[in-house]
């Protein structure tokens, strides 16, 4: 494998890492907002959030990607492949993450809400100081899964011309520069290695988030 090939593949890895990071940054605030909307007192807000979640979960990420990249320009909104890539991946993931966050919010024991209510804490204070901090360790493992799904789904952006890890490797494989077996084995191992920091970071956050909740362990 010559230096040009290696360089382009490493560039692809960087692009993949960028797409995934940006997608997660897009997904996080959206997911939190939609999750809060899903547990809102107002029916209309809950309904809108449900439509958002079900629409995104019910249509494939690939089709969403194609639609944004190929249809939006027809409607007069030109968008670069890179931006379309991370935005669609992020919005798509936000639907799944919102459901995870919602589940974790609902898992906070009701007496905690009653204690907050009797103390007179507002809905906002109760959510930000009591509910979300307790929901956080509950949602982390499943959010880690969503993040890894984003990584794996990021290979889709290669289909709208983004020069990510997958596109660069397959480019050299289809032109016969590198062996097909080597190419796809490289992808297999490459994505696995890329998932390691996500898994590791998730575990670290989880451990940290639980440190005050158990009777034993570090104070």
């Amino acid at each position, binding site marked *: 494998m010559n230096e040009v090939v290696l360089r382009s593949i490493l560039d692809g890895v960087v692009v993949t890492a960028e797409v995934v990071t940006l997608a997660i940054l897009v997904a996080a605030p959206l997911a939190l907002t939609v999750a809060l909307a899903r547990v809102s007192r107002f029916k209309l807000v809950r309904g809108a959030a449900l439509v958002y979640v079900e629409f995104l979960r019910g249509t494939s990420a690939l089709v969403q990607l194609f639609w944004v990249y190929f249809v939006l320009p027809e409607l007069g909104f030109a968008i670069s492949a890179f931006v379309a890539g991370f935005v669609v991946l992020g919005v798509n993931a936000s639907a799944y993450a919102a459901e995870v966050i919602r589940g974790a919010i609902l898992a906070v024991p009701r007496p905690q809400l009653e204690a907050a209510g*009797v103390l007179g804490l507002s809905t906002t204070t109760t959510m930000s100081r009591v509910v979300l901090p307790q929901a956080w360790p509950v949602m982390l493992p499943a959010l880690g899964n969503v993040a890894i799904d984003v990584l794996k789904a990021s290979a889709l952006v290669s289909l709208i011309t983004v020069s990510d890890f997958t596109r660069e490797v397959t480019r050299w494989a289809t032109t016969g520069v590198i062996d097909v077996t080597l190419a796809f084995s490289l992808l297999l191992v490459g994505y696995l290695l890329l998932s390691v920091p996500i898994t590791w970071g998730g575990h670290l956050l989880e451990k940290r988030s639980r440190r005050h909740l158990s009777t034993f362990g570090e104070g």
Partner: protein
Amino acid sequence: MTELSGKAGSGIAMAGVTKQYGDHRVLDAIDLDVRGGERVALIGPSGSGKTTVLRCIARLEAIESGSIRIEGHEIARMADARSGKASAEVAAAMRGVGMVFQQYNLFPNMTVLDNLTIAPVKVLGVDKAEARERAAGLLDLVGLGAKADAYPARLSGGQQQRVAIARSLAMQPSVLLFDEVTSALDPELVGEVLEVIRGVAAQSDVTMLIVTHEMQFARDIGDRVVFMEGGSVVEQGPPEKVLADPENERTQRFLRRLLNH
């Protein structure tokens, strides 16, 4: 006592309160008055509606009909109301009501000190430093001054319950509701919690409505004992009268069963 500025108000007035869960009538047009500064022990068999009385006063439950007044303000949450959210007037009246739960319900994600300061700071707008100082005083009062920076999970049940009492006092309530606060505790930890409640009672004018299974405690602390069964008040009066020489046959049966237990 500087930590406890218990203001004696006009207390609690429940009139004709009915509460249903489906077809089951938990409270049956119950009348119950607690004068400002009075300590009332509420006793009765399980399922008699004692806890529901407290939960209705704390607005944790909506009622079908009747009236609940705190210091003269109508605060009942009605089942047919369009929203469960309190109006500004009701919220203001409820600021004077504290509740201590059977399961403590401390916030596990906060230190003991933060458990005590969050409501004064966020709800009453008390300055943070002042809230911490007051909280430290209250922790001393319940004998846990050294635990300010501990997290609840590190405390025993008895300690957690004492913190919960201090947390409710931090809001300077005029009415305190105690919901079987020793029922979840190991027997050897019951005493320390009851001792704290006795101390609070001795050092303040706070109105107290105490649901308890501890008859000796009910006798010691209560200006009055109220016996409930089937969602209404069966008998009430001075502790020595109701507990030692009850008139009503149902009260007699309940106390006999306790003694033979």
